[in-house]
């Protein structure tokens, strides 16, 4: 009966994202927030494992207090309880620091067999957090898992790689990050939504985790996010005239100049 931790993150719904045409910066105000796509797969996988092998799944999230609806959604899908790590001091945390916050909370939650993460978040998409967390907790890690089977206290996982599938195994405790292919996240029924209201949500701040405010947030982060901006994609509107041979010649020259060839 595995004791599971699922790390999930709240992100803006990228389908609603607009780019400020003047600054090229993303306009995120008023946009619907949702659980990051692959994290839904991680939650689903934990619930499936629970349905087959029993156990318990706790969701852990570093986020703003406003992410409660996402927590409710995760609980409705079937997580047993959730732990919100929120503190004004966490603002500006980079991946390294978010991993430190998560690691502190996971230690505080007690012994566990598995940590499930998404392969990468829909917004930052650094795919750093899982590995970083595994290092901090000194765990074996299986990234890009597209299929997971539990046998006793062994985990067998298929990893989707660019050039094939790798099958690996590890024993508990282990950290897994999962891909989109692993499952199809379920939608909660109304009954499950109502039941989720009764589930436990722990709320911890930096002090509850024994973290000094210097070690988290902007102060604790070696990476500072300066600016997020969209690429400007513009047509160059170059017309190649002349015979086919001349035009081809010029096309090659232009592509060489652009560094494409």
């Amino acid at each position, binding site marked *: 009966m595995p004791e599971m931790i699922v790390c999930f993150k709240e992100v803006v719904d990228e389908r609603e994202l607009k780019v400020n045409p003047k600054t090229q910066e993303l306009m995120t105000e008023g946009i619907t927030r949702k659980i990051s796509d692959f994290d839904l797969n991680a939650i689903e996988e934990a619930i499936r494992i629970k349905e087959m092998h029993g156990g318990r799944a706790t969701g852990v999230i570093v986020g703003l207090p406003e992410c409660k609806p996402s927590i409710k959604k995760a609980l409705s899908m079937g997580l047993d309880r959730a732990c919100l790590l929120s503190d004004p001091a966490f603002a500006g945390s980079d991946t390294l620091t978010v991993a430190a916050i998560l690691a502190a909370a996971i230690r505080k939650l007690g012994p566990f067999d598995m940590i499930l993460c998404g392969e990468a978040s829909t917004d930052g998409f650094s795919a750093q957090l899982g590995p970083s967390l595994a290092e901090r907790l000194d765990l074996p890690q299986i990234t890009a898992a597209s299929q997971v089977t539990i046998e006793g206290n062994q985990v067998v996982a298929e990893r989707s790689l660019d050039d094939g599938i790798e099958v690996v195994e590890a024993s508990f405790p282990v950290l897994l990050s999962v891909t989109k292919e692993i499952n199809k996240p379920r939608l909660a029924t109304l009954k499950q939504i*109502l039941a989720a209201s009764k589930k436990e949500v722990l709320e911890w701040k930096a002090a509850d985790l024994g973290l000094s405010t210097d070690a988290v947030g902007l102060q604790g982060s070696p990476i500072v996010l300066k600016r997020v901006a969209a690429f400007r994609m513009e047509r160059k509107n170059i017309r190649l005239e002349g015979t086919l041979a001349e035009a081809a010649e010029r096309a090659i020259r232009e592509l060489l100049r652009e560094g494409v060839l």
Partner: protein
Amino acid sequence: MLNLSFSEDQELFRQMVREFAQTELAPGYLERAKREEAPREEFRKMAELGLTGINIPEEYGGQGADYVTIGIAIEEIARADINCSYPIAVGGLGGGAFLKHGTPEQRETWLPKITRGETLLGLALTEPGCGSDAAAMKTTALREGDGYVLNGEKSSISFVNCATDFFLFAKTDPKAGARGVSCFLVPMDAPGLTTSIFHDMGCKPIGRGALALKEVHIPASSLMGQEGRGFHLVMEEFDYTKVLIGLMCLGTAQAALEDAIAYAKERKAFGKPIARFEGVSFLIAEHATRMEAARLLCYQALWLRDQGKPHTKEASMCKWWVPKISAEAIHDALLIHGHLGYSDEYPLEQRWRDVLAFQIADGTAQIQKIIISREILGREYLPY
């Protein structure tokens, strides 16, 4: 105290239903809408999500929620595919009717099957000779031995292509008017019952058709409620399906308006997006205003029902007005799309044809206005 917000649970439920409807139903709407085939696979998925038993108590496998919550589901499903919203309305109607009028045995038998989506109930009231004046029906149910024998014809009945059973209304006392009408549960495969399908301009997957009843024998246990109380039963349940029909139309119109908004921002004429022309943007503003008012009216009526308060008047207001303004909104959304709107490769004309059904089904505007005036002016001012 006035509080016009949905609960946090209802908001999350709306989000779930929307996610389901937009991914599972919306992409296939247009293709399905052209066929006279019930969307059984989609119905099955909806039952799996508990959408056919929203108001049915948990002990029967339902979700045990209120009518406002059914409204949310209907609106979201209709935004993707109006035809798929039918079983929610019918499930709600069946659930309500069994809870109020069914015997304990009937509840045990029917409610779990409705929630699992195994039973799909139709409602057979209208006849070739009467619709608005349903009490003038000719179909009879006469006692014979320990059951009833049904004879007659029902016409313009939805779900003839896929219902497993019908709430069928017939006269147990042919000489009496409304008080002679009783309600029966009649299985689709009852010997002596034959069906035919109509070919409609919209809502094709819903399979509107006729039922001919020739010496159809049913057991006494098929009687719903008391003899002679069938008309009362259906009118009580219509008080709520009328509101759901409003939300079905509104959901469909909402989808059309959203399409029109997106198109108006993109389509350029005379060098700018057509949304910059007030002839276009004001149309959108006006429909959005009416639709917002309609939405409030619908949810108020459902809320009244949840509070156990009278809502006959409000239900009839929803029924005559909301399908009408929805059809008008879709019409303008179609025109905003210019020549593209007229093409059957876009869903606009389909949505328009679909919602037109609901200016007729479940009672026309005139009949609703008779009810509203009766509620406002008093029975003595009825035309008959």
